[in-house]
């Protein structure tokens, strides 16, 4: 007979000395790992719960302004530097790592309406209610020098916004019309307008750098090409758009923050219907900024909260609020895509984590792999009702919560009315209009 018994040498399975790590032989045979799916499900459930436990997004509040913060700007070269302009004409430069103000400038009389940095990071521009455009050096004045702007341009009308070209020494302002300026000159290179109304914001496209977008109070969004004398096309919406922001990864996509509580993501090539309508806010949306990855954006609203939306989802994935934060006027996503800054009415700038439950600092490789594994599990089981409920739950202030309920009732009533109207009229005479097409009034070329 031939016989072989299973006989293991223990030396192959236990560590030699106490200084070694324990040996863990693996065998991936499914029969040795029963209940694979239920166990993964339980792990996913636990990971989702832990994510909510560790969701502490608020990092810091930068106080020092003496009036509401009206505008924010990122430094193009330094992650730690951020600039802010207030309603009393003061501009402050902050260091985020120390969470301190490093410089204060009394830039304008009245509001600082807009602020932007030059692409090289050596200087920045501000516009204010005093009808001036000022260029400032990023570094403070030397000992004994006075705080003076590099250049000052006196305009005829109030400027409401400013943005700098991403590559060339040119910038654009808006007010009664959109002006394109050369940095060296004191008069605009070109002025463009389409109708007569005050334009609230202008933004350069970060990829197709000659393109601009602006939004005006006559409810339209206008697109321009810097090389042409006239605007390209415009889209008219139901209500006024406050700001727009271009997607930094996809040249033709931009998102508009609208007064009707919604955000609209448009494809520049087909403006007759937005790609996606993002609806979660319960009051006017005042500002929007894209993450550098182009996958998500953050919006600031008059309802005292900021929300993070995935570009391809109509519902927000996250809402941030505090008891003390008032109407949020401006918001920025930092260039490392990890943090969000928002400036609000009650004079503070707040710093948030973009991913609420993320652990800051250096992660060990085991932490990282555990994180990745949990992420994958959450993704796999995200549609299970129990997991979904926990992942979706957010605590909201009473004002927002009751507003949501109220608006849901209103929307339902409107829908019911339309359904009844359709039921009692000639078939086809009350067409079904999709939510995306409902809000666009017209496209003009």
């Amino acid at each position, binding site marked *: *007979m031939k016989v072989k018994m*299973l006989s293991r040498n223990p030396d192959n*399975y236990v560590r030699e000395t106490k200084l070694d790590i*324990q040996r863990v032989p693996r065998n991936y045979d499914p029969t*040795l790992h029963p209940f694979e799916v239920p166990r993964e499900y339980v792990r996913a459930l636990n990971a989702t719960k832990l994510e909510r436990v560790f969701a502490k997004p608020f990092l810091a509040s930068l106080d020092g302004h003496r009036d509401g913060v009206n505008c924010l700007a990122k430094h193009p070269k330094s992650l730690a530097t951020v600039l802010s302009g207030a309603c009393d004409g003061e501009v402050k430069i902050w260091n985020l790592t120390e969470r301190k103000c490093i410089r204060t400038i009394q830039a304008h009389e009245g509001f600082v309406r807009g602020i932007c940095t030059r692409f090289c990071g050596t200087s920045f521009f501000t516009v204010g209610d005093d009808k001036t455009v000022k260029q400032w050096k990023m570094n403070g004045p030397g000992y004994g020098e006075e705080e003076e702007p590099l250049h000052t341009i006196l305009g005829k009308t109030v400027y409401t916004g400013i943005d700098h070209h991403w590559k060339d020494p040119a910038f654009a302002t808006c007010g009664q019309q959109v002006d394109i300026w050369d940095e060296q000159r004191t008069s605009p290179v070109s002025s463009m307008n389409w109708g007569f109304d005050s334009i609230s914001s202008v933004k350069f496209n970060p990829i197709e750098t000659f393109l601009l977008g602006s939004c005006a109070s006559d409810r339209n969004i206008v697109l321009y090409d810097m090389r042409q004398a006239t605007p390209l096309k415009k889209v008219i919406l139901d209500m006024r758009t406050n700001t727009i922001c271009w997607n930094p990864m996809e040249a033709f996509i931009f998102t508009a923050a609208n007064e009707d509580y919604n955000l609209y993501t448009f494809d520049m090539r087909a403006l007759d219907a937005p790609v996606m309508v993002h609806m979660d806010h319960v009051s006017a949306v005042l500002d929007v900024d894209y993450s550098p990855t182009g996958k998500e954006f953050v919006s600031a609203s008059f309802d005292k909260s900021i929300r993070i939306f995935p570009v391809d989802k109509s519902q927000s994935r996250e809402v941030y609020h505090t008891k003390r934060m008032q109407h949020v006027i401006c918001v920025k996503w930092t260039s490392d895509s990890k943090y969000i800054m928002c400036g609000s009415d009650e004079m503070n700038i707040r710093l948030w984590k973009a991913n609420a439950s993320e652990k800051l600092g250096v992660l060990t490789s085991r932490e990282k792999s555990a994180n990745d594994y949990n992420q994958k599990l959450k993704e796999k089981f995200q549609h299970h009702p129990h997991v979904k409920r926990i992942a979706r739950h957010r605590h909201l202030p009473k004002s927002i919560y009751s507003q949501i309920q109220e608006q849901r009732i209103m929307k339902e009533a409107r829908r019911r009315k339309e359904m009844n109207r359709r039921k009692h009229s000639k078939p086809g005479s009350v067409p079904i209009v999709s939510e995306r097409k409902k809000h666009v009034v017209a496209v003009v070329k």
Partner: protein
Amino acid sequence: METAPKPGGSVPPKKGRLPAMRKKPRRYWEEEATSPAAGPPRKKTRTLEPGPTRRKSANGPKPRNQRKPGGRKAAQRRKPEQTLSGAQDPFPGPAPARVDAARKFCRIDRSEKLPRAKRKTRSKLEAAEAQEEEASARAARSELLLAEEPGFLEGEDGEDTAKILQTDIVEAVDIASAAKHFDLNLRQFGPYRLNYSRTGRHLALGGHRGHVAALDWVTKKLMCEINVMEAVRDIQFLHSEALFAVAQNRWLYIYDNQGIELHCIRRCDRVTQLEFLPFHFLLATASETGFLTYLDVSVGKIVTALNARAGRLSVMAQNPYNAVIHLGHSNGTVSLWSPAMKEPLAKILCHRGGVRAVAVDSTGTYMATSGLDHQLKIFDLRGTFQPLSARTLPQGAGHLAFSQRGLLAAGVGDVVNIWAGQGKASPPSLEQPYLTHRLSGHVHGLQFCPFEDVLGVGHSGGITSMLVPGAAEPNFDGLENNPYRSRKQRQEWEVKALLEKVPAELICLDPRALAQVDVVTLEQQKKERIERLGYDPDAKAAFQPKPKQKGRSSTASLVKRKKKVMDQEHRDKVRQSLEQKQQQQKQEKAKPTGVRPSALDRFMH
């Protein structure tokens, strides 16, 4: 008598090829020789592809990564890359993986398609499937790293392995294995029930007259020994070797490994059988009063008590694949229970008389039952619960147990019979026993030791530890059950296991059901949505002809155009169904009258 052959000896040597194989081994930097028979030197290690499917072609080297024909992806046929020095990679492409091994790890059923999935969903599913496939291929490739080979026992020509005595085996094997065979003569307190811990390291035994002991049976170190002064019906380790439950005459008790009584559970009274579900932390107890009670040992609460309505319960087994409890009844049925349901999941009529013993194998595919009609039957648990094979034993088996590799042991009076199947996933064939052994008393308890080629038998004369070569899974997974784990490792494992305790409600016949699309709920949701909205948002809009210029937009022409489109759609449908029919017919025809497969067919692709 020979010693054990080297691992990998399963590949039969090809006699005709031998002279060609003896060629000088080539180095990897040498040019590919013209003779294709001189295989790469790596072939001497373990071959992964089954022998007959290996390709040997006469014209030049072929990449080794070719799968069987009918593989899902087109096999990547990469030519060996030429480097600057002119050397060739002798093993181009990814390492080969055995197809049947990959199938073992495959978790997706490709035959099932989601009805009317949207394009986005479909693409997501396709990506997931591709990932899954890659994962299974990689897992299959990692089998190369497994260190141990299973044991075996082979008789010489015409020799019956059942005639081989334990003493012969003990003489033939190494000392360490020989030490695993022992007898404990405990005539005073017998008959004994026994239970191995999940790692296979520890053994708990309970004599009917009150003797309870737990020991590390490998080192023969006694952990505790007590006499509970009461009849002991059954004994069972809980999730680790630190705790065990004892079903005593009146109530259920839980002791720790020093023999200290931790709990007395009076809600479980007159318990006859115990089963522990390790991933759910549930202790299932069957009682004389006819109740099947689930006790959650992590929180100490009774989850459910189910009334089986079948009188005294004394036959119980768990299905390790889906944690369903099988109860054998005196009317010949076996009922399947889960704590989520008040009624049995299924009832199987197995025997003419009462059922004496039930066992389920580790893959959850086969169930063995024995009844008062002296029959031993094996059932297929996949789907229809049909009997696969049956055999009449002269006395009928009182106890049954499956090993990890699918061996079936039966205690018949004072004899233990063991049957083996062809491979790991095949049912044991009941024609010829693989081993038999006569004990000094009647069998009362039977369990294969996990991860060791040992069968523990409790009988009226004590405990016998039998050697059964080839019974156990040779390669354990260190993160699940590690026989060599340290105290620290055990503590860590315990915390993790408790964190991922599966809720009792999830026990059902198919444990993978949780990962499948709930089509019923999905359709219900869709119906509700359509009702709420007043229209179907996913429906395809009816064709509406566009108005045309120059007077071609008359009503008649509009209707005509509409009609044309409708007819076209109808024609498409008819054509599709016709094509389907034709294909079916073709397949049916091709089956019987196909040309005989030739050995050269594999070169045709």
